[in-house]
Each structure stands twice: as structure tokens, then as C-alpha cells.
């Protein structure tokens, strides 16, 4: 492979705090050098990226793919295409597929399928319980050997307290954490929206927001009891974030992520029964949205994940309560996060850190940073260039974006995986 040198870019490396103009040299799939005044070696391909930002490729901590089992919604190839267009080079995939990823062979298969795309690493979670059914512990040791990054039942909460205690306890033996969908299932059953005035007006079955804080409180107690590491996914309420903040201050092994809908939208997005905005957990009040923004800014949240959930038209063109929850999120992950940078809520490096080095550190991965010797997983983006999210025109197969119609500033110009360009023409 020819050397590649990207020149004139604003280099952004949240891991070191680097934010300066300079050049970056890619050799044999790794970052060979970077900095100001770097000269192009003879024969290198030179990419003039003046006006654009060069950052580590995004590490998406949470995505559900249609494959295996729901290929009509999305295939791994189409998800990889959407990820590349969104600047994502590492994609952590949930195990509640069909079949569920509760067998070492299935995990190896997913990892190989990711390698075959050539554009994105697929890092699978292992199921926390056999079949993600919540009854029997999965084979954490064998799954970990096969490449499981952590354990979770995906969109299904581990509702049984004893099972969660066992999972947190047993996972310690293999240095893994357990990811919880924090929603008390008996309070959430059948619900389609957040309980409150709007759901009452729309006549929708609702879930009290307390269902989230309650599960977070329980699992913090279990983390304290077991010494295990619990990670809360897509946290969406201020009450839950307060508990997580306090648990971190106490020194417990508690981490958490959120997803763009929870800091960019509030429950009013479901007005007129817009099923593209039907998510799990459901969109919250404006006060909760602001609490999520505050938790991003103060470090309580460790990552922003796309929480990508592909759905097709038949899943969504239904009366609201019958429609499937979930939104496509790969292509919009960076743009919606940058909206909080433009809005003055987050410094650029902090925002990028939540998308790169912080999730990478959580997973113990060498990617997510601009450093000599790191894999040349890169995203080049223009921070101000505008575009409009339009369902039907998004990359990949899944078009169910909750941000349909949203104008965004911040466009991905190019994505490199291991030094190979996987998205964008010449910038």
C-alpha cells in the first residue's frame, strides 16, 4: 500500500488533547507520524484536507444489526456501508439477534463477517444469558475467548436480580463488564411512550421514567455487592444519571453511555404519532434531555453510542403502540453529536472523546486515538458543512431515522479503516 499523507487538516485527538493544524502519515495501515511541518515522503499520496478536521475513526459502543435473522431490515454489508459513511470504524454489536450470540462459534462468525467487510471491525457482545432469555448464565469464559467484548442481553433488561448478581459476579473472573438495558420490565411492559401529560393526551400506554432509575439503583447495589462492573446503556433520565454520578464518586465500577436521540430530541418528537421517534427507552421530557447534556459535559457519561436499531417500513407504518421501537443511528452519530458542540454544550475534543478514545478505553482497544503506531482508523469531516437527514436517502438499508428532516452541520468527507479509504471520494 502506498503511503498516505493528509495535510492541512485540523488534527483532533481527544486522548492527548491535541487540537492543532498539521499532517498525518499513514503507512502499512498504521499511523506512522503526525504533527505540524510533517513532510510528505517520496511517492506518498498527498491529500490536502484544508478546512477539515481529522479525528480517530468512531468507536460505536452499541448497535443492533439486522444480520443474523432480520436481513430484510439490514445486512452486515449495508450496516458497514452506513457505518463508513458515518465515520464509524469500530462497531460493537449486540447479541440479541436471531439466533442470539450466545455460542462461541457465532461470535467468531460475526468477527469474521466484520473482517470481510474490510471497512469496519465488528466487535460482538456475548449474550449474558443463554438465548438472551434471562434464565441461565451464558458461557462467559468461552465467549470471552471467542472475542466477546462484554456481556449483555441487548434490548432486553436482565430483570431478575439474582441473575444480574450472578452475571456481575461471574464476569469478574474474565475481566468483563455487564451491560444493562436499565428498565424495570414489569413497569415497562406494553409501554410505548414516557408516562406524563403527552402520553395521556395521545392515549398511549406509557412507562414511568422511574423504571430506569429503579433498575440503575438496583444494579448499583449489585455492583457494590459483587465488585463487578456494570455498564448502563442509553441512559435517558436525570434521576438515573444522578445515581450513576454518585456511584462513580463512591468509586464503584459503574459506567454508562447514552445515544443521540436522548440529548437531541425530547418526547414532543412523537407528537402526531410519529413512529420513527418511537424508541426504547422512549424519548423523555425536555428536563431529562438537558440532564443528559449535562452528564455528557461533566463526564458522568462515558460514551455516546449510536444505539442503531434497523427497522423497515412494515415495522413502522403501524399505529404507534403496535410499531416497533428503534431508530437507525449510524450515519447521524457524528452530526448529531456535533450539534451539541455547535450549541456550546460540549467542547469539540470532549464530544469526540465520547465517540472515540473513551469507549475504546472502556473496551481496552488500541484504536480511537491519533498516535504513532495506532491503527490508521480515521475520519475526516467538515465541522460546518450542512446536510439534511432524509429517510430514504441515508446510506445503508435502514432508513428509520428519528432525526428525519433534521438539518445538521458536520459532514463526513472520508473514512479510513486500517489505512484503506472506505468512504468518500477525494476531499
Amino acid at each position, binding site marked *: 500500500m502506498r503511503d498516505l499523507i493528509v495535510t492541512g487538516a485540523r488534527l483532533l485527538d481527544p486522548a492527548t488533547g491535541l487540537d492543532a493544524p498539521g499532517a498525518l502519515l499513514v503507512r502499512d495501515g498504521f499511523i506512522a507520524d503526525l504533527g505540524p511541518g510533517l513532510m510528505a515522503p517520496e511517492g506518498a499520496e498527498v491529500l490536502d484536507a484544508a478546512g477539515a478536521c481529522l479525528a480517530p475513526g468512531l468507536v460505536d459502543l452499541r448497535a443492533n444489526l439486522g444480520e443474523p435473522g432480520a436481513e430484510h431490515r439490514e445486512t452486515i454489508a449495508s450496516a458497514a456501508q452506513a457505518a463508513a459513511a458515518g465515520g464509524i470504524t469500530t462497531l460493537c454489536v449486540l447479541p440479541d439477534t436471531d439466533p442470539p450470540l450466545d455460542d462461541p462459534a457465532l461470535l467468531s462468525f460475526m468477527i469474521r463477517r466484520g473482517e470481510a467487510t474490510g471497512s469496519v471491525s465488528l466487535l460482538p457482545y456475548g449474550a449474558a444469558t443463554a438465548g438472551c432469555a434471562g434464565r441461565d448464565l451464558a458461557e462467559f469464559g468461552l465467549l470471552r475467548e471467542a472475542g466477546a467484548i462484554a456481556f449483555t442481553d441487548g434490548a432486553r433488561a436482565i430483570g431478575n436480580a439474582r441473575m444480574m448478581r450472578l452475571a456481575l459476579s461471574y464476569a469478574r473472573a474474565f475481566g468483563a463488564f455487564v451491560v444493562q438495558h436499565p428498565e424495570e420490565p414489569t413497569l415497562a411492559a406494553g409501554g410505548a411512550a414516557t*408516562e*406524563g*401529560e403527552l*402520553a*395521556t*393526551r*395521545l*392515549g*398511549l*400506554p*406509557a412507562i*414511568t421514567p422511574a423504571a430506569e432509575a429503579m433498575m440503575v439503583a438496583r444494579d448499583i447495589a449489585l455492583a457494590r455487592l459483587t465488585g463487578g462492573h456494570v455498564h448502563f446503556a442509553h441512559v435517558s433520565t436525570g434521576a438515573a444519571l444522578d445515581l450513576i454520578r454518585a456511584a462513580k464518586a463512591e468509586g464503584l465500577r459503574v459506567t454508562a453511555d447514552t445515544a443521540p436521540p436522548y440529548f437531541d430530541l425530547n418526547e414532543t418528537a412523537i407528537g*402526531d*404519532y410519529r413512529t420513527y421517534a418511537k424508541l426504547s427507552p422512549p424519548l423523555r421530557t425536555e428536563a431529562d434531555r438537558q440532564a443528559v447534556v449535562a452528564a455528557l459535559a461533566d463526564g458522568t457519561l462515558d460514551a455516546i453510542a449510536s444505539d442503531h436499531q434497523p427497522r423497515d417500513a*412494515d415495522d413502522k*407504518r*403501524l*399505529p*404507534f*403502540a*403496535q410499531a416497533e421501537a428503534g431508530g437507525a443511528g449510524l450515519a447521524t452519530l457524528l452530526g448529531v453529536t456535533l450539534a451539541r458542540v455547535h450549541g456550546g454544550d460540549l467542547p469539540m475534543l470532549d464530544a469526540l472523546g465520547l465517540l472515540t478514545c473513551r469507549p475504546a478505553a472502556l473496551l481496552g482497544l488500541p484504536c480511537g486515538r491519533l498516535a504513532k503506531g495506532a491503527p490508521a482508523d480515521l475520519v475526516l469531516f467538515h465541522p460546518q458543512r450542512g446536510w439534511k437527514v432524509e429517510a430514504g436517502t441515508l446510506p445503508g438499508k435502514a432508513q428509520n431515522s428519528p432525526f428525519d428532516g433534521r438539518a445538521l452541520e458536520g459532514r463526513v468527507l472520508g473514512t479510513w479503516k486500517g489505512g484503506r479509504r472506505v468512504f468518500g471520494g477525494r476531499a
Partner: protein
Amino acid sequence: MSHPSKHLLAIEGLEPPHIADLLDLAESYALLNRSGKTQRDLLKGRTLINLFFEDSTRTRTSFELAGKRLGADVINMSVSQSSVNKGETLLDTASTLNAMQCDLLVIRHAQSGAPALLSQKVDAAVINAGDGTHEHPTQALLDALTIRRHKGRLEGLVVAICGDIAHSRVARSNIHLLTTMGSRVRVVGPPTLIPADAARLGVEVFHDMKAGLAGADVVMMLRLQRERMSGGLVPSAREFFRFYGLDAEKLAHAKDDSIVMHPGPMNRGVEIDSAIADHPTRSVIGEQVEMGVACRMAVLDILARRLPRNR
């Protein structure tokens, strides 16, 4: 003032003049109906389809009668419960209806928002005849007309809506209509049957029936669905009747000239005592049914004015 939309999907969002217009027109139809005259040329050549995904006798018959009295060709379509669950039926049905060149579509569906979804896909004017736990606009209109005929006004009246508010589309539509028209609305029921943030809809919430009925001009009872008891929201029918069923003792707390309403069908001995339901002067339940036809005629009339002349 003309109706603000092509459809009637909800009471929420209507302004007082829109509601007053509908009620005035309905009043004139009530008089016409009593005189035995008809107006069979108004919807001549128009097709009205009653599309009911939920069982209903009263509402469907009422719309059928209203359509026929105005000269429309009325077709009843009942869709079986099993195919409803497949979901796709709703939009498949929409394309079928477009092919049939339906002008006015009356829909009842177990899912909140189903008429709104259908209205985006069909050419016809859509009338919501009850969707899930969302709204039942024509029921609120007929209730308001009944009240107005007895009390001469809506403004300033104290109306107590009692029972299962949480799951009631009748309650929601009535709350929106009556608060818009200046009535003082109370909702009365056990906390498990009061929806979240009910007070934000502009009503006063009571959990004690006697306190809730004190000084009321209108007592509006709601049907308690049997499945609410199996869902554990109330422990038993007898306990519910004891504390929230309307009997003479509780009604004595309302004004002496208060009227008693019920959207039907009634669970006698669960939410209402038979002696009250059949009371010759206090109960206006029979009149509600009569006003139902008049209100639905008014709604069909007003929406038909916005239809293109020739299809």
C-alpha cells in the same frame, strides 16, 4: 366559521367557535329528526364507509342512520380482530378504500392514532369514531349537546367525569371539549384509573366520589372495562361499586337538578345503579343516544362541505 380540517380526528385543537358551530348545526338536526323530516339530498351520491375494527353497535348504527338521513350510500365494513393484529391491514385497507372512492370514512380502532395514520393515506374525510384510549370526538359532541339542551349552556357548569379515566377516550374528548367551552371539569376515580398528569389537562382530580360530586351540575359515568379488574387496577367489581359506583346516596351530593350521563353500554351494578340509570328525570342516557344521530349528521354535513364537488 368553517371546520378547520378535512377530518375530525380529535376534539383537542378545536376552538370554541368550531365546537359551537357543530353543536348549533346538530341542534337543528335534532329538531329536524323530531319533526320526522329528512334531508336526503345533502349527501346524495356520496359514499360513507363505516370501518369498524372494534365491535360497536351503538356508534356504528348511529353513524349509519346519520348518513342515511342525509342521503349518503352507507356501507358497513367490520374487520375481524384476528386480521387487525396483523397491523398491515390498516394501510392495505386504505388503498382498498381509495379504489372504492369513499368520500367519508368513519373509523373505530383499538389503537390510539390509527385514524390519524389512515387519514394520511386515504383521500376520504376521516371521522374518528373512537381510537384506543385517545379520543372519541362525536361522543363528546353528543354529550355537550345533551348538556346544553338541559342546562342552556356549557360555560361555568361543574361536570364530574367518574370512573376509569385512564383508559377512556370518551373522558379525554369530553375533557378537551368541556374545558375549551369553559366548563369546570372534575375527574373522579381511584388513583390507579386516573392518567398521569391529568391535572395538566385542566381538570381537578378527586379520589373521593362524594367530594367530587359535591355541587356538580352534570355527573358523567364511564364504563369500567372488565379487563381492568383482571389487570389488578381495581380489586373487584363490588369494591369499585361501593366506592365509585353511582347510587342515590352519592348522587345526593350533586346539585338537586343535576343530570346523569353514561356513554353506554352500562355495567349496571358496577359503575351505576339501575335505579339511577333509569331515573325518569335525572338520567338523560336515552337522550344521549338521540343526540348522537344529530351530532353525527352535523359532522358529516360540515365535513362534506369541504369535499370536492365531483370525484
